[in-house]
């Protein structure tokens, strides 16, 4: 039932989901491992701290902005429609993308409680360096999660999360592309749906 481990890992990792596309520069396996170890420790410390959900959400959003290449991920997710979008639409997209990521993190905070994080190994896969980890949660089966790391602007950043062979950045890109193609290739339609989703998540919190 190893598949279960991957699926459960996907849930845990989803908020970090975003994930960038274009490899800027390769990070050595040792450096990537050290980066993910440090990031994981920070994540666990925030989630398991004795603070309110609102405080944790704020701290997690700050942490994610530090360790994930969110803008690059947004570019990847928008894909070829980046050239179709007007500068104003592109700017609005990035703003909404950051907000959606923040909301997704808040949505998952309770599920993170009691999380444990073990770094296993790191290897170069294509243009990325992927660090394999095992994530544990109380009452749940351990989950195997791969973190793709690239060097962005001189610092290592997470650009993808891989669970059960599924890339979360590719999944998100396909999700967003479907919205655009279902609406005649209009980026404005994507922006409307993103805003509606943000409103919906906030209303349910």
């Amino acid at each position: 039932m190893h598949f279960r481990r991957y699926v459960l890992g996907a849930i845990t990792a989803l908020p970090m989901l975003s994930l960038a596309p274009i490899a800027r520069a390769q990070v050595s396996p040792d450096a990537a491992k050290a980066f993910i170890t440090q990031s994981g420790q920070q994540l666990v410390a925030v989630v398991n701290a004795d603070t309110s959900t609102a405080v944790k959400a704020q701290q997690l959003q700050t942490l994610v902005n530090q360790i994930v290449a969110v803008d690059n991920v947004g570019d990847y997710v928008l894909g070829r429609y980046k050239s179709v979008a007007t500068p104003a639409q592109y700017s609005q997209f990035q703003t909404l993308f950051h907000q959606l990521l923040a909301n997704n993190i808040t949505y998952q905070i309770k599920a993170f409680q009691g999380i444990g994080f073990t770094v296993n190994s790191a290897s170069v896969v294509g243009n990325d360096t992927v660090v394999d980890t095992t994530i544990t949660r109380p009452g749940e089966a351990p989950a195997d999660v791969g973190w793709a790391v690239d060097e962005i602007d001189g610092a290592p950043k997470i650009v993808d999360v891989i669970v059960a062979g599924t890339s979360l950045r590719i999944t998100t890109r396909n999700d967003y592309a479907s919205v655009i193609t279902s609406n005649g290739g209009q980026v404005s339609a994507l922006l409307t749906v993103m805003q509606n989703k943000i409103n919906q998540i906030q209303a349910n919190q």
Partner: protein
Amino acid sequence: MQHNGILPAGWGKSGRIAAIAAPALILAGLLSGCAKAPPASDTADYQAYQAQNDPLEPTNRVFYSINDKLDRYAFKPIAKGYIAITTQGIRNHVGDFVTNIGEPARLIYFAAGGKPRDAGTALVRFVVNSTVGIGGIFDPATHLGYPETDTDFGLTLAEWGVPAGPYLYLPAFGPSGARDAFSIPVAFFLTPMEAAPASTAMTAFGWSQTALHLVNTRAQFMDAIDQVQATALDPYATFRSLYRQSRASQLQLIDQRDTPTVPDWFPQPAAQAAQ
């Protein structure tokens, strides 16, 4: 990530007629609703349409909507009740038990697909887990160096070079494809229960095992499905993407594991060389 379908493969003997008839009925229904392709002159959109390979999307979305309602009002509540009265440990053992029942079929799929080592692993797993693992409730084979590698007839066809074909979202079964849909009827016949002499007890066992598999699998994906439905802009497209990536990954894993390996209990070559 093959979830959000209602019925797992290996449904049971009594469902065989429905299983065989289902693909034909489904295909007939699917043909009634096709997505409109963009003109080939619109290169980027046309290429995206081709890559998406979901020409029956309108009909698939109707089935997705039906499954979603079935799941929301029937299967999800049952799975939540099941989670409430079981522990993760129990659910893991149920999963191991169901997985073990599927090993003989995997052996055949791997052998037919020209994967002798994967087939051998399935055989060892079935023998070890059925005996030492007390009927498959435990999974000692994994700890001996024989981890589970999942497969089905659709992946065997893929090994034969059959392309995936258009994406299909099947009523009750969920995400699939023109090639993978053939794994449904085949799975009905390739179970240990089929080989056993017919009896009322065996039929009851088959249905019970199927129901347990169904509920346990839905419980296993509870958080994942909730997450996708809560955060994805288009859950249908998200499940489609996850399904396709998952199938590609399964194929990769099958090929990767069909290589000479040394079980954990056997002296490792590296250790021997160091001595």
